[in-house]
């Protein structure tokens, strides 16, 4: 009894510093955002209570819906692009092949690179006049396929999405590889003895056994995509003409370029609920209780 209480105290004391930091830097700002979202505030002068006016304005702003639409594209591209591609490569790499470490390192490289470096490099690749892609197309005589990738609002979002997928495939690749390593050798051997083909083994044994990991990857993917900001900020800054605007970027510009801290907070509150609902739905759909 005495020992147990001591342990509780020890745990509390041990958790406390981290908890305090977390409360101050993660929970408190969220609560503050809720408060600010009911205010009209330019960041300098006194705040003025405006009730739900910020939210009403927000829902009537086509640019907000535009940014939400683009954000959904990012989520879809991440979940349907990053995860399957990463899983596919991980399955390929999960066998005794030469140079496995090299492939793994190459795959993981984009994750280690700074986003700004990635954005600038891809901007150069996409450049319409002397970028790698267009130069290649022109050399191959496919001039008609050359596009103003980032400068044309029809292509800019697609171009950005390709970069987004490329950037994070490596992360999920590593996660999947780690999970695959944990699939017991005996089970696979048993399947082999029973005469199951590789295809059958993969679908009926390997994937179900790492299903938990796949769900975690999907959730990470969604929350990561909803936060997406830096890559697009550097590559296009939401342009041209808002064609690559995402919610975080919209919030940032409304808050800091237009000096509407109250309105910006309202946007972040909506992003908060939007993310919450989306992740809740997905975990429900995938049949897991995460929340």
């Amino acid at each position, binding site marked *: 009894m005495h020992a147990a209480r001591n342990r509780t105290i020890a745990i509390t*004391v041990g958790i406390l510093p981290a908890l305090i930091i977390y409360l101050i830097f993660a929970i408190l700002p969220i609560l503050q955002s809720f408060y600010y979202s009911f205010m009209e505030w*330019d960041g*300098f002068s006194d705040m003025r209570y405006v009730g739900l006016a910020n939210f009403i304005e927000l829902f009537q702003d086509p640019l907000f819906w535009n940014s939400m639409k683009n954000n959904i594209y990012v989520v879809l591209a991440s979940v349907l692009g990053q995860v399957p591609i990463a899983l596919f490569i991980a399955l390929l790499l999960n066998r005794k092949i030469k140079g496995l470490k090299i492939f793994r390192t190459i795959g993981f490289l984009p994750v280690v690179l700074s986003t700004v470096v990635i954005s600038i490099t891809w901007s150069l690749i996409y450049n319409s006049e002397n970028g790698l892609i267009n130069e290649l197309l022109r050399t191959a005589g496919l001039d008609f396929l050359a596009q103003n990738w980032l*400068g*044309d609002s029809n292509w800019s979002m697609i171009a950005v999405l390709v970069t987004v997928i490329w950037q994070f495939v490596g992360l999920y690749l590593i996660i999947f590889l780690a999970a695959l390593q944990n699939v017991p050798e005996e089970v696979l051997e048993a399947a082999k003895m029973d005469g199951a083909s590789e295809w059958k083994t993969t679908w009926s044994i390997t994937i179900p056994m790492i299903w938990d990991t796949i769900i975690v990857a999907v959730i990470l993917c969604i929350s990561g995509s909803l936060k997406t900001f830096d890559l697009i900020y550097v590559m296009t*800054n939401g342009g*041209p003409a808002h064609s690559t605007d995402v919610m975080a970027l919209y919030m940032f510009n409304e808050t*800091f370029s*237009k000096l509407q801290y109250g309105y910006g907070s309202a946007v972040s509150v909506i992003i908060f609920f939007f993310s919450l609902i989306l992740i809740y739905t997905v975990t429900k759909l995938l049949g897991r209780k995460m929340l």
Partner: protein
Amino acid sequence: MRKLSFIIIISFGLMLGLVACSSGESQETSGNDVIELTLWNDWTEDRPENRAYKSMVEKFNEQHDDIEVVIEAIPHDQYETKLRTQAAGQQLPDMFRVWPGARIQPLVEGDAVLPLNDITDNWKGYIPEAIMEDYAVDGNQYAIPGNVSETSLIFYNKEMVAQAGFDTFPATYEELKTLIQSLNDQDITPIALGNKGIWPLQSIYISTIADRFTGSDFLPDVLNGEGSFENEQFIKSLAVIQELTEMNAFNSDMNTLDEAQARNNFISGNTAMHFAGSWAIGPILDSVENIDNIGVAPFPSFAGGEGDPQKIAGVAGGGIALNSKLTEEEQQAAFEFLKFFYSDEMYQQLIDANIIVPADVEIGEDIPQVFQEANKLAQGGLAPVYDATLTPELTDVINNGLQSITLGEMTPEELAAQMQQELESE
């Protein structure tokens, strides 16, 4: 039990560490008798103007044992965002670079900056009152102008323009269009534009083009509610951007390059012209191969325009504002710094760096022709610069709208209507 006390000590240590971190900044000055002043600026690019500013700060520190000015440079495109964010959190540095007009207004309204009225006599008769006023709000002076930014100059490659059949640079818009046409026929990109930052088309182009069409009273009148953006002349000026884009006057990647990249394309001789402000004079002269091949011209005149074609959009710049929360002692130190900084010595250095200055200083004969001509253009009078006059919200609308016009997603009429709507909702 020993383990437990160990944990407690460690966690308290951590918490103390946190507390120490958060209060660290305020203790800086009390350490010894040196007053430390932090100065935020955007002098990150290595160009003559910035070198001049930094050398002045170094010199000041050398001559003053009791004051230490510490400079912290932030890239220009992020500078204002960072400043506003810090201002909202009441965490402004002691001194910081500010831009005049609408851009300093919120800081004044929020009582974040200190009036300099006590020391403005120092520059009386040295800097013209009209230019000083750019940094004044409601009769209070908040910064001393360090330079004058002309935002609309045309830099051109003399050889290319001559090849296209123009010995002198076109003086009218009609002639300019002929020039663009004939450059295009020769497969030369006429104008290097880097509009990724979305401000160049507005600040550089529209500020002067709209002034040519509407006259300088238009903008203040509209903002006072005595006019409307849905004005035929103003719409005509927006249509110029549309027309230039449609006739392929710009490089096709204009919306993915930033201003400096576009300038470099011009410097390396890939394009015949580059429209930019006086801030580009230094970098262009610094890195271009043959200075004599570069010419500078004012924007052309537009038929039917109501404005004065001699004018050029421009505004004072290079001001440093002081934090309103400085202690008495720090204020005196900061005043001393400002007096030292905005002196003949600095203005002279700026002229050597091809920066147009507000102060009445002598210009040596060895100063390049391009600079002297640009300097002369300011004599024709200054027209208001749009983003220095409009509110941040309106600036955002026109910036994005102009980009949409270049993409064919918006018409000039629609943009004018949108601006008017934004103005009325404020």
